[in-house]
Protein backbone atom coordinates (compact mmCIF):
# COMPACT_ATOMS: atom_id res chain seq x y z
CA UNK A 1 0.00 0.00 0.00
CA UNK A 2 1.27 3.47 -0.87
CA UNK A 3 -0.23 6.37 1.05
CA UNK A 4 0.17 10.01 0.06
CA UNK A 5 0.14 12.26 3.14
CA UNK A 6 -0.75 15.95 3.10
CA UNK A 7 -0.08 18.29 6.03
CA UNK A 8 -1.40 21.88 5.98
CA UNK A 9 -2.50 22.56 9.55
CA UNK A 10 -0.49 25.69 10.21
CA UNK A 11 2.61 27.24 8.62
CA UNK A 12 4.16 24.34 6.72
CA UNK A 13 2.94 22.65 3.59
CA UNK A 14 4.28 19.09 3.70
CA UNK A 15 3.61 16.14 1.39
CA UNK A 16 5.06 12.62 1.55
CA UNK A 17 4.52 9.07 0.36
CA UNK A 18 4.70 6.13 2.73
CA UNK A 19 4.93 2.55 1.46
CA UNK A 20 3.61 -0.14 3.81
CA UNK A 21 6.58 -2.39 2.93
CA UNK A 22 9.43 0.02 2.33
CA UNK A 23 8.47 2.84 4.71
CA UNK A 24 8.89 6.44 3.65
CA UNK A 25 9.74 6.69 -0.05
CA UNK A 26 9.43 10.45 -0.66
CA UNK A 27 8.82 13.53 1.42
CA UNK A 28 9.04 17.26 0.93
CA UNK A 29 8.27 20.51 2.66
CA UNK A 30 7.52 23.47 0.47
CA UNK A 31 10.26 25.57 2.07
CA UNK A 32 12.96 23.00 1.33
CA UNK A 33 12.12 22.14 -2.23
CA UNK A 34 13.39 23.77 -5.35
CA UNK A 35 10.28 23.76 -7.42
CA UNK A 36 11.65 24.97 -10.72
CA UNK A 37 9.93 22.21 -12.60
CA UNK A 38 6.48 23.25 -11.45
CA UNK A 39 6.79 26.97 -12.04
CA UNK A 40 8.87 26.98 -15.21
CA UNK A 41 12.01 28.31 -13.56
CA UNK A 42 10.44 31.00 -11.41
CA UNK A 43 9.73 30.25 -7.79
CA UNK A 44 7.32 32.84 -6.44
CA UNK A 45 7.58 34.11 -2.89
CA UNK A 46 4.50 32.77 -1.20
CA UNK A 47 3.18 33.69 2.22
CA UNK A 48 3.86 31.00 4.77
CA UNK A 49 0.21 30.07 5.15
CA UNK A 50 -0.57 30.17 1.46
CA UNK A 51 -1.11 26.44 1.12
CA UNK A 52 -3.34 26.70 -1.93
CA UNK A 53 -0.57 27.46 -4.38
CA UNK A 54 1.87 25.04 -2.78
CA UNK A 55 0.04 21.81 -2.28
CA UNK A 56 -0.41 20.52 -5.85
CA UNK A 57 3.14 21.37 -7.03
CA UNK A 58 4.36 19.58 -3.91
CA UNK A 59 2.26 16.47 -4.71
CA UNK A 60 3.81 16.42 -8.20
CA UNK A 61 7.25 16.87 -6.67
CA UNK A 62 6.99 13.84 -4.33
CA UNK A 63 5.56 11.66 -7.11
CA UNK A 64 8.59 12.57 -9.18
CA UNK A 65 10.92 11.83 -6.23
CA UNK A 66 9.33 8.42 -5.77
CA UNK A 67 9.35 7.86 -9.52
CA UNK A 68 5.67 7.06 -9.37
CA UNK A 69 2.56 7.89 -11.31
CA UNK A 70 -0.46 9.19 -9.40
CA UNK A 71 -2.36 6.05 -10.42
CA UNK A 72 0.01 4.06 -8.19
CA UNK A 73 -1.19 5.80 -5.01
CA UNK A 74 -3.44 3.51 -2.95
CA UNK A 75 -4.85 6.03 -0.48
CA UNK A 76 -4.53 9.62 0.72
CA UNK A 77 -4.09 10.82 4.29
CA UNK A 78 -4.58 14.48 5.26
CA UNK A 79 -4.45 16.46 8.47
CA UNK A 80 -8.04 16.94 9.61
CA UNK A 81 -7.08 18.99 12.68
CA UNK A 82 -6.33 20.63 15.00
CA UNK A 83 -5.05 23.77 13.29
CA UNK A 84 -6.17 26.86 11.40
CA UNK A 85 -9.55 26.36 9.74
CA UNK A 86 -8.60 27.87 6.39
CA UNK A 87 -5.29 26.02 6.27
CA UNK A 88 -6.93 22.68 7.12
CA UNK A 89 -9.58 23.22 4.46
CA UNK A 90 -6.95 23.48 1.74
CA UNK A 91 -5.32 20.15 2.62
CA UNK A 92 -8.64 18.39 3.12
CA UNK A 93 -10.09 19.68 -0.14
CA UNK A 94 -6.98 18.78 -2.14
CA UNK A 95 -6.82 15.30 -0.57
CA UNK A 96 -10.50 14.52 -0.88
CA UNK A 97 -10.70 15.75 -4.48
CA UNK A 98 -7.62 13.79 -5.54
CA UNK A 99 -9.01 10.69 -3.86
CA UNK A 100 -12.37 11.00 -5.62
CA UNK A 101 -10.77 11.55 -8.99
CA UNK A 102 -8.39 8.60 -8.51
CA UNK A 103 -11.18 6.48 -6.95
CA UNK A 104 -9.12 5.69 -3.87
CA UNK A 105 -9.89 6.12 -0.14
CA UNK A 106 -8.99 9.24 1.85
CA UNK A 107 -8.52 9.38 5.61
CA UNK A 108 -8.35 12.35 8.02
CA UNK A 109 -5.50 12.26 10.52
CA UNK A 110 -5.09 14.01 13.87
CA UNK A 111 -2.05 16.29 13.63
CA UNK A 112 -0.83 15.41 17.14
CA UNK A 113 -1.17 11.69 16.50
CA UNK A 114 1.08 12.27 13.50
CA UNK A 115 3.65 13.89 15.80
CA UNK A 116 3.59 11.21 18.44
CA UNK A 117 3.98 8.45 15.85
CA UNK A 118 6.86 10.27 14.10
CA UNK A 119 9.55 8.36 16.07
CA UNK A 120 8.23 5.22 14.35
CA UNK A 121 9.72 6.52 11.11
CA UNK A 122 13.12 5.69 12.64
CA UNK A 123 14.88 2.32 12.56
CA UNK A 124 14.45 1.76 16.28
CA UNK A 125 10.76 2.16 16.97
CA UNK A 126 9.14 2.61 20.37
CA UNK A 127 6.62 -0.03 21.45
CA UNK A 128 3.23 0.66 23.03
CA UNK A 129 2.44 1.59 25.74
CA UNK A 130 4.50 4.75 26.28
CA UNK A 131 4.39 8.33 27.49
CA UNK A 132 4.65 11.04 24.85
CA UNK A 133 5.94 14.55 25.53
CA UNK A 134 4.70 16.74 22.69
CA UNK A 135 6.53 20.04 22.70
CA UNK A 136 6.27 22.64 19.95
CA UNK A 137 5.42 26.26 19.21
CA UNK A 138 1.75 25.54 19.74
CA UNK A 139 1.65 22.59 22.12
CA UNK A 140 3.04 21.34 25.40
CA UNK A 141 1.40 18.08 26.37
CA UNK A 142 2.16 14.89 28.26
CA UNK A 143 0.12 12.01 26.87
CA UNK A 144 -0.28 8.40 27.88
CA UNK A 145 -0.32 6.25 24.73
CA UNK A 146 -1.68 2.75 25.34
CA UNK A 147 -2.07 1.81 21.72
CA UNK A 148 -2.90 3.42 18.39
CA UNK A 149 -5.90 5.67 19.00
CA UNK A 150 -5.90 5.22 22.75
CA UNK A 151 -4.60 8.44 24.27
CA UNK A 152 -4.99 10.01 27.70
CA UNK A 153 -3.94 13.60 28.34
CA UNK A 154 -1.85 13.67 31.51
CA UNK A 155 -0.97 17.35 31.50
CA UNK A 156 -0.62 20.42 29.30
CA UNK A 157 0.40 24.06 29.30
CA UNK A 158 -2.14 26.40 30.82
CA UNK A 159 -0.81 29.42 28.93
CA UNK A 160 2.18 29.69 26.55
CA UNK A 161 3.50 26.64 24.72
CA UNK A 162 7.15 25.86 25.40
CA UNK A 163 8.26 26.66 21.84
CA UNK A 164 6.49 30.00 22.08
CA UNK A 165 8.33 30.74 25.34
CA UNK A 166 11.62 29.97 23.56
CA UNK A 167 10.74 32.17 20.57
CA UNK A 168 9.57 35.11 22.66
CA UNK A 169 12.49 35.00 25.09
CA UNK A 170 14.80 34.88 22.07
CA UNK A 171 13.12 38.04 20.79
CA UNK A 172 13.64 39.74 24.18
CA UNK A 173 17.33 38.91 23.83
CA UNK A 174 17.44 40.65 20.48
CA UNK A 175 17.31 37.53 18.29
CA UNK A 176 15.01 37.46 15.25
CA UNK A 177 11.61 35.76 15.63
CA UNK A 178 11.15 32.78 15.75
CA UNK A 179 14.43 32.37 17.55
CA UNK A 180 14.11 29.22 19.68
CA UNK A 181 16.99 27.45 17.91
CA UNK A 182 19.18 30.62 17.99
CA UNK A 183 18.50 30.96 21.72
CA UNK A 184 19.68 27.38 22.23
CA UNK A 185 22.85 28.22 20.33
CA UNK A 186 23.42 31.39 22.37
CA UNK A 187 22.88 29.40 25.57
CA UNK A 188 25.91 27.22 24.74
CA UNK A 189 28.14 30.23 25.50
CA UNK A 190 26.30 31.02 28.71
CA UNK A 191 27.21 30.45 32.31
CA UNK A 192 24.72 28.32 34.25
CA UNK A 193 25.51 29.87 37.64
CA UNK A 194 24.89 33.56 37.03
CA UNK A 195 21.10 33.65 36.86
CA UNK A 196 18.46 31.34 38.23
CA UNK A 197 15.01 31.19 36.62
CA UNK A 198 12.04 29.61 38.42
CA UNK A 199 10.81 26.11 37.50
CA UNK A 200 7.09 26.89 37.05
CA UNK A 201 4.51 24.56 38.63
CA UNK A 202 7.08 22.04 39.85
CA UNK A 203 6.59 22.62 43.56
CA UNK A 204 2.99 21.49 43.48
CA UNK A 205 1.56 18.18 42.31
CA UNK A 206 0.27 17.61 38.80
CA UNK A 207 1.57 17.40 35.26
CA UNK A 208 0.41 20.74 33.87
CA UNK A 209 2.85 23.38 32.66
CA UNK A 210 2.95 27.17 32.61
CA UNK A 211 5.60 29.11 30.73
CA UNK A 212 4.18 32.63 30.59
CA UNK A 213 5.84 33.59 33.88
CA UNK A 214 9.30 32.70 32.53
CA UNK A 215 8.85 35.31 29.81
CA UNK A 216 8.07 37.95 32.45
CA UNK A 217 11.08 36.79 34.46
CA UNK A 218 13.24 37.15 31.35
CA UNK A 219 12.00 40.71 30.78
CA UNK A 220 12.92 41.73 34.33
CA UNK A 221 16.30 40.03 34.11
CA UNK A 222 17.11 41.73 30.80
CA UNK A 223 16.01 45.12 32.17
CA UNK A 224 17.98 44.88 35.42
CA UNK A 225 21.28 43.78 33.93
CA UNK A 226 23.91 45.26 31.60
CA UNK A 227 23.31 44.82 27.88
CA UNK A 228 26.30 42.83 26.65
CA UNK A 229 26.90 39.56 24.78
CA UNK A 230 27.91 37.55 27.83
CA UNK A 231 24.86 38.68 29.82
CA UNK A 232 22.56 37.74 26.96
CA UNK A 233 24.20 34.32 26.70
CA UNK A 234 23.91 33.83 30.47
CA UNK A 235 20.20 34.73 30.41
CA UNK A 236 19.59 32.39 27.45
CA UNK A 237 21.37 29.64 29.34
CA UNK A 238 19.44 30.20 32.59
CA UNK A 239 16.15 30.27 30.67
CA UNK A 240 16.89 27.07 28.77
CA UNK A 241 18.02 25.28 31.93
CA UNK A 242 14.76 26.26 33.65
CA UNK A 243 12.64 24.99 30.76
CA UNK A 244 14.60 21.76 30.36
CA UNK A 245 14.64 21.12 34.09
CA UNK A 246 10.88 21.71 34.30
CA UNK A 247 10.25 19.19 31.52
CA UNK A 248 12.58 16.63 33.10
CA UNK A 249 10.76 16.98 36.44
CA UNK A 250 7.34 16.55 34.78
CA UNK A 251 8.46 13.56 32.71
CA UNK A 252 9.90 11.90 35.80
CA UNK A 253 6.60 12.48 37.56
CA UNK A 254 4.61 11.06 34.62
CA UNK A 255 6.80 7.95 34.59
CA UNK A 256 6.35 7.44 38.32
CA UNK A 257 2.59 8.01 38.19
CA UNK A 258 1.91 5.72 35.24
CA UNK A 259 4.57 3.08 35.81
CA UNK A 260 5.41 3.26 32.09
CA UNK A 261 9.11 3.47 31.35
CA UNK A 262 9.19 4.39 27.68
CA UNK A 263 9.22 8.09 26.83
CA UNK A 264 8.71 9.46 23.34
CA UNK A 265 9.52 13.11 22.69
CA UNK A 266 8.11 14.80 19.59
CA UNK A 267 7.40 18.26 18.20
CA UNK A 268 9.74 21.09 17.23
CA UNK A 269 11.23 21.57 20.70
CA UNK A 270 12.16 17.87 20.60
CA UNK A 271 15.03 19.03 18.37
CA UNK A 272 16.58 20.93 21.30
CA UNK A 273 19.84 19.17 22.06
CA UNK A 274 20.02 20.23 25.71
CA UNK A 275 16.55 18.72 26.26
CA UNK A 276 17.59 15.50 24.50
CA UNK A 277 20.71 15.29 26.64
CA UNK A 278 18.96 16.00 29.97
CA UNK A 279 16.09 13.60 29.28
CA UNK A 280 18.61 10.97 28.18
CA UNK A 281 20.40 11.16 31.53
CA UNK A 282 17.15 11.05 33.50
CA UNK A 283 15.60 8.15 31.59
CA UNK A 284 18.81 6.16 31.90
CA UNK A 285 18.79 6.80 35.65
CA UNK A 286 15.19 5.56 35.83
CA UNK A 287 16.04 2.49 33.73
CA UNK A 288 13.67 3.49 30.92
CA UNK A 289 13.89 3.97 27.18
CA UNK A 290 13.84 7.26 25.30
CA UNK A 291 12.85 7.82 21.66
CA UNK A 292 12.96 10.87 19.42
CA UNK A 293 11.96 11.40 15.82
CA UNK A 294 14.75 12.32 13.42
CA UNK A 295 15.47 16.06 13.57
CA UNK A 296 13.58 16.80 10.33
CA UNK A 297 10.46 15.03 11.58
CA UNK A 298 10.26 17.02 14.82
CA UNK A 299 8.64 20.01 13.13
CA UNK A 300 5.45 19.78 11.03
CA UNK A 301 5.84 17.49 8.02
CA UNK A 302 3.87 15.34 5.58
CA UNK A 303 5.76 12.13 6.42
CA UNK A 304 4.12 11.67 9.81
CA UNK A 305 0.67 12.11 8.24
CA UNK A 306 1.44 9.61 5.46
CA UNK A 307 2.76 7.16 8.07
CA UNK A 308 -0.20 7.57 10.46
CA UNK A 309 -2.60 7.16 7.51
CA UNK A 310 -0.77 4.05 6.38
CA UNK A 311 -0.93 2.27 9.75
CA UNK A 312 -4.53 3.29 10.37
CA UNK A 313 -5.59 1.90 7.00
CA UNK A 314 -3.56 -1.29 7.60
CA UNK A 315 -5.40 -1.71 10.89
CA UNK A 316 -8.64 -1.65 8.97
CA UNK A 317 -9.90 1.85 9.60
CA UNK A 318 -12.73 2.65 7.23
CA UNK A 319 -12.21 5.81 5.19
CA UNK A 320 -15.09 8.28 5.27
CA UNK A 321 -16.60 10.21 2.40
CA UNK A 322 -16.95 13.47 4.33
CA UNK A 323 -14.10 15.83 5.00
CA UNK A 324 -15.03 18.13 7.82
CA UNK A 325 -11.84 19.76 9.19
CA UNK A 326 -11.64 20.10 12.97
CA UNK A 327 -9.67 23.19 14.06
CA UNK A 328 -10.21 22.11 17.67
CA UNK A 329 -9.97 18.39 18.19
CA UNK A 330 -8.93 16.88 21.54
CA UNK A 331 -6.56 13.95 20.98
CA UNK A 332 -8.51 11.96 23.57
CA UNK A 333 -11.52 11.80 21.23
CA UNK A 334 -9.61 9.49 18.89
CA UNK A 335 -10.13 5.74 18.88
Amino acid at each position, binding site marked *: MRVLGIETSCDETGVAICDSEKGLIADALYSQVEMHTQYGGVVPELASRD*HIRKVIPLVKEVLQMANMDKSEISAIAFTRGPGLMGALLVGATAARTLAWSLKIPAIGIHHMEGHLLAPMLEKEKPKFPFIALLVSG*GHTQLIRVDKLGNYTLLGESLDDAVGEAFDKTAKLLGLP*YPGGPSLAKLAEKGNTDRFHFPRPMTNRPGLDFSFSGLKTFAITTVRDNPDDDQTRADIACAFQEAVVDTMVIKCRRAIKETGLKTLVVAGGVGANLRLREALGVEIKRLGGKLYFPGLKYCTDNGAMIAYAGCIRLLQGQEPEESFQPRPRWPLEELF
Partner: protein
Amino acid sequence: MKMKNNKITFNLADEKATIKLAERFADVSNDNFCCHLIGDLGAGKTCFVRAYLRQKGCKETIKSPTYTLMESYSINKKEYYHMDLYRLEDPEELDFLGIRDMDNNNCFFIEWPDHGINYIIPADIVINIRHDKKGRTLSFTTLSPKGINTIKKLTNHNDKNIS
Protein backbone atom coordinates in the same frame (compact mmCIF):
# COMPACT_ATOMS: atom_id res chain seq x y z
CA MET B 1 -6.60 56.97 37.28
CA LYS B 2 -6.55 59.87 34.84
CA MET B 3 -9.40 60.75 32.49
CA LYS B 4 -8.89 62.97 29.49
CA ASN B 5 -11.39 63.30 26.65
CA ASN B 6 -11.55 59.83 25.16
CA LYS B 7 -8.65 58.37 27.12
CA ILE B 8 -8.36 56.93 30.59
CA THR B 9 -5.10 55.78 32.15
CA PHE B 10 -4.30 53.48 35.06
CA ASN B 11 -1.05 52.74 36.84
CA LEU B 12 -0.69 49.05 37.57
CA ALA B 13 1.84 47.88 40.13
CA ASP B 14 1.87 44.22 39.19
CA GLU B 15 0.11 41.34 37.44
CA LYS B 16 -2.56 41.25 40.13
CA ALA B 17 -3.46 44.85 39.36
CA THR B 18 -3.75 44.04 35.63
CA ILE B 19 -6.07 41.15 36.46
CA LYS B 20 -8.17 43.29 38.77
CA LEU B 21 -8.62 46.00 36.17
CA ALA B 22 -9.56 43.43 33.51
CA GLU B 23 -12.18 41.97 35.88
CA ARG B 24 -13.61 45.41 36.51
CA PHE B 25 -13.69 46.08 32.77
CA ALA B 26 -15.54 42.77 32.28
CA ASP B 27 -18.08 43.73 34.93
CA VAL B 28 -19.07 46.99 33.21
CA SER B 29 -18.83 45.98 29.54
CA ASN B 30 -21.57 44.46 27.41
CA ASP B 31 -19.12 42.45 25.22
CA ASN B 32 -20.26 44.21 22.11
CA PHE B 33 -16.99 45.73 20.92
CA CYS B 34 -13.68 45.15 19.23
CA CYS B 35 -10.67 45.89 21.37
CA HIS B 36 -7.15 46.22 20.02
CA LEU B 37 -4.31 45.61 22.49
CA ILE B 38 -0.96 47.30 22.01
CA GLY B 39 2.16 46.63 24.06
CA ASP B 40 5.53 44.88 24.00
CA LEU B 41 6.09 41.18 24.53
CA GLY B 42 5.29 40.35 28.14
CA ALA B 43 3.41 43.62 28.76
CA GLY B 44 0.38 41.67 29.97
CA LYS B 45 -1.97 41.75 26.95
CA THR B 46 -2.87 38.06 27.11
CA CYS B 47 -3.02 38.26 30.90
CA PHE B 48 -5.61 41.04 30.57
CA VAL B 49 -7.76 39.12 28.08
CA ARG B 50 -7.51 35.92 30.13
CA ALA B 51 -8.73 37.71 33.27
CA TYR B 52 -11.55 39.32 31.28
CA LEU B 53 -12.77 35.97 29.90
CA ARG B 54 -12.47 34.30 33.31
CA GLN B 55 -14.58 37.05 34.86
CA LYS B 56 -17.18 36.49 32.15
CA GLY B 57 -17.36 32.87 33.25
CA CYS B 58 -14.97 31.05 30.91
CA LYS B 59 -14.05 27.68 32.42
CA GLU B 60 -11.71 26.39 29.69
CA THR B 61 -7.94 26.75 29.57
CA ILE B 62 -7.26 30.13 27.96
CA LYS B 63 -4.09 29.48 26.02
CA SER B 64 -1.91 32.02 24.33
CA PRO B 65 -3.25 32.49 20.79
CA THR B 66 0.20 33.34 19.39
CA TYR B 67 0.65 30.06 17.57
CA THR B 68 -2.90 29.45 16.35
CA LEU B 69 -3.40 33.19 15.66
CA MET B 70 -6.91 32.90 17.07
CA GLU B 71 -8.77 31.14 19.86
CA SER B 72 -12.51 31.40 20.30
CA TYR B 73 -14.66 30.89 23.37
CA SER B 74 -18.34 30.44 23.78
CA ILE B 75 -19.53 31.79 27.12
CA ASN B 76 -23.23 31.97 27.98
CA LYS B 77 -24.16 31.75 24.30
CA LYS B 78 -21.91 34.66 23.38
CA GLU B 79 -18.84 34.27 21.12
CA TYR B 80 -15.50 35.76 22.12
CA TYR B 81 -12.54 35.87 19.76
CA HIS B 82 -9.01 36.26 21.08
CA MET B 83 -6.59 36.94 18.26
CA ASP B 84 -2.85 37.45 18.19
CA LEU B 85 -1.39 38.63 14.89
CA TYR B 86 2.23 38.54 16.07
CA ARG B 87 3.19 35.70 13.74
CA LEU B 88 1.40 37.11 10.74
CA GLU B 89 3.77 37.87 7.89
CA ASP B 90 1.20 39.09 5.43
CA PRO B 91 -2.25 40.47 6.35
CA GLU B 92 -3.70 38.40 3.50
CA GLU B 93 -3.06 35.35 5.65
CA LEU B 94 -6.03 36.47 7.73
CA ASP B 95 -8.22 34.99 5.01
CA PHE B 96 -7.12 31.60 6.29
CA LEU B 97 -8.85 32.38 9.56
CA GLY B 98 -12.10 33.05 7.80
CA ILE B 99 -12.01 36.61 9.13
CA ARG B 100 -14.39 37.85 6.43
CA ASP B 101 -17.11 35.51 7.61
CA MET B 102 -17.09 36.69 11.20
CA ASP B 103 -20.02 38.51 12.73
CA ASN B 104 -18.83 41.92 13.96
CA ASN B 105 -21.39 41.85 16.77
CA ASN B 106 -19.28 39.39 18.75
CA CYS B 107 -16.58 40.37 21.19
CA PHE B 108 -13.07 40.69 19.79
CA PHE B 109 -9.69 41.13 21.44
CA ILE B 110 -6.89 41.58 18.94
CA GLU B 111 -3.25 41.62 20.00
CA TRP B 112 -0.63 43.09 17.61
CA PRO B 113 -3.33 44.70 15.41
CA ASP B 114 -0.65 46.61 13.44
CA HIS B 115 0.31 43.31 11.76
CA GLY B 116 -3.12 43.07 10.16
CA ILE B 117 -3.98 46.67 9.53
CA ASN B 118 -6.81 47.31 7.00
CA TYR B 119 -7.83 43.65 7.19
CA ILE B 120 -9.16 43.49 10.71
CA ILE B 121 -12.24 44.84 12.40
CA PRO B 122 -11.63 48.47 13.45
CA ALA B 123 -11.24 49.12 17.15
CA ASP B 124 -13.93 50.57 19.38
CA ILE B 125 -11.40 50.60 22.19
CA VAL B 126 -7.61 50.56 22.10
CA ILE B 127 -5.77 49.28 25.15
CA ASN B 128 -2.17 50.36 25.38
CA ILE B 129 0.08 48.74 27.97
CA ARG B 130 3.53 50.15 28.73
CA HIS B 131 6.28 49.02 31.02
CA ASP B 132 7.85 51.61 33.25
CA LYS B 133 10.05 51.50 36.31
CA LYS B 134 7.16 51.34 38.76
CA GLY B 135 5.25 48.67 36.88
CA ARG B 136 2.89 49.21 34.00
CA THR B 137 0.68 51.95 32.64
CA LEU B 138 -2.51 50.85 30.94
CA SER B 139 -4.70 53.20 28.96
CA PHE B 140 -8.06 52.78 27.29
CA THR B 141 -8.69 55.00 24.27
CA THR B 142 -12.16 55.03 22.77
CA LEU B 143 -12.66 55.41 19.05
CA SER B 144 -16.40 54.86 18.67
CA PRO B 145 -19.69 55.54 20.50
CA LYS B 146 -19.73 51.87 21.56
CA GLY B 147 -16.31 52.28 23.14
CA ILE B 148 -17.17 55.57 24.84
CA ASN B 149 -20.20 54.08 26.59
CA THR B 150 -18.16 51.21 27.99
CA ILE B 151 -15.35 53.42 29.20
CA LYS B 152 -17.79 55.83 30.85
CA LYS B 153 -19.09 52.97 32.96
CA LEU B 154 -15.53 52.10 33.90
CA THR B 155 -14.95 55.61 35.26
CA ASN B 156 -18.21 55.58 37.22
CA HIS B 157 -17.33 52.30 38.81
CA ASN B 158 -15.82 52.97 42.19
CA ASP B 159 -12.76 50.97 43.03
CA LYS B 160 -9.84 52.70 44.64
CA ASN B 161 -7.62 49.66 44.82
CA ILE B 162 -6.27 49.93 41.32
CA SER B 163 -5.14 53.44 40.63
